[in-house]
């Protein structure tokens, strides 16, 4: 393995995103918000288009769009439509609007594939700072609210009785999700962010007895997938983002196989 600077930056970027995605991904799994993650991620392509047309940073554009989508979903849910219907509408239409909006920007040099599937090898030092800054913020936020988040994940009334406002905790998760989407877009791209959230958490589940343990194991699995996927992509000359997700999926399959064998 050649330790080129760009590879080290890529590895650091991948690990940074994996560390932030682990605790958040656990909440996404526990609260059955997988589609919510998809909707937020898909909305971000619209954020990319807006950022490019207003000539601001892509990170900011994505963050704003992801936040807008997250709060739209939060406020619309429970008003007539089933949540999965609502999310299905919002996720795919925002992706479609984003792709259409990007096509208007044909004058701008824009590699759409880089936003859909990530471009981890092109991570700059500034990107790295943004990724680790965002990851640190998400981890700190979840650490701070951990007990309240867990309690409201269990049951909203239980949270109310303990003086916790579950709507506020939902907002905090929405904010954390937006930040993770914004920093992960460079690493795995819009289409695969949800996979990076869910697969490590789901892989960790059988090995954990407490929520905290599950989060730690998910972080390790995420980091291993990021570094391993990067190496595999380098040796087989495959797209990096999808390779990372493939490796995570293989680990998921192995973990389930292990459970199956142990039970019989």
């Amino acid at each position, binding site marked *: 393995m050649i330790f080129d600077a760009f590879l080290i930056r890529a590895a650091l970027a991948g690990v940074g995103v994996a560390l932030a995605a682990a605790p958040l991904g656990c909440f996404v799994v*526990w609260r*059955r918000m997988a589609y919510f993650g998809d909707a937020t991620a898909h909305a971000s392509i619209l954020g990319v288009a807006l950022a490019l047309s207003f000539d601001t940073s892509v990170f900011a554009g994505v963050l704003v769009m992801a936040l807008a989508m997250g709060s739209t979903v939060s406020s619309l849910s429970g008003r007539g439509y089933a949540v999965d219907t609502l999310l299905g509408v919002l996720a795919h239409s925002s992706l479609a609007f984003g792709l259409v909006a990007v096509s208007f920007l044909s004058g701008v040099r824009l590699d759409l594939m880089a936003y859909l599937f990530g471009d981890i090898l092109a991570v700059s030092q500034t990107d790295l700072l943004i990724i680790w800054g965002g990851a640190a913020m998400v981890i700190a936020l979840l650490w701070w609210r951990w007990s309240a988040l867990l*309690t409201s994940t269990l049951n909203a009334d239980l949270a109310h*009785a303990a003086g916790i406002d579950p709507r506020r905790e939902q907002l905090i998760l929405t904010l954390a999700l937006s930040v993770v989407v914004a920093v992960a877009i460079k690493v795995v791209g819009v289409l695969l962010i949800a996979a990076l959230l869910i697969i490590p958490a789901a892989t960790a*589940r059988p090995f954990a*007895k*407490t929520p905290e*343990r599950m989060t730690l194991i998910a972080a390790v699995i995420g980091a291993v997938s990021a570094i391993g996927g990067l190496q595999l992509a380098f040796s087989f000359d495959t797209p990096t983002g999808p390779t990372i997700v493939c490796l995570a999926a293989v680990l998921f399959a192995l973990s389930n196989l292990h459970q199956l064998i142990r039970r019989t």
Partner: protein
Amino acid sequence: MNLVTLSNVTVAHNANPVLRNVNFAISPGEIVTVVGPNGSGKSTLLRTIIGALRPSQGALNKAPDLRIGYVPQKLHIDPTLPLTVRRFLSLPVAVHDEAAKRALEQAGAGQLMQRQMTGLSGGQFQRVLLARALLCNPQLLILDEATQGLDQPGSAAFYQQIEKLRQELGCAILMVSHELHVVMAASDRVICLNGHICCEGAPEQVASAPEYRALFGSGTQGALALYRHEHTHSHDHSCGHDHAHDPQPAKETESQ
């Protein structure tokens, strides 16, 4: 000084009033049971008191720094969430091992500390919920049909535990119950609810009130009528298990 006071409270779901002009208060150490048909606003009343719902009219006053222990009607834990009983007891406030152990013993679930929440039986689960509610050293314990899904002996044992707790801890208890022998034996006061408070008072008083009879059927054994009424309803919902009607009258006389 009352722990909780509701004055002229109206609570609405999507502009439909579920509770209308409710006046209610509970004082320290009192046991109050709320009875009423399905959809009568029993859970709404409890959820308003814990702060999950806001009154659209009227005022809700709580004693300053009131500690409420809440046992919900049912709690679904997603199978993807690994959670030991020990960890559950430390939510949201971390407690010491000793306190956790004591609470489990008080709730009659001493052996369950290291078990997974999703692996508990219905009765064990309710006891763990009760233990968790006890950990804040509550001045008011609120139970929302806490024995739903338990069989007869299971719920009888559960309520015996609650009565014992009141004696030990001296906390006030507010509960929704369908089981009349509990109402008769343990409550200081019964509230009969059907969107508004139909009648309230000592259990014997309520059982003979015309408003109560109108809701739960008449007959010489007004008290027993409630029990039978509930059972005919659960047959309608085909809950898929046999209800032992025969032993019931014996239990009823026992508790009176």
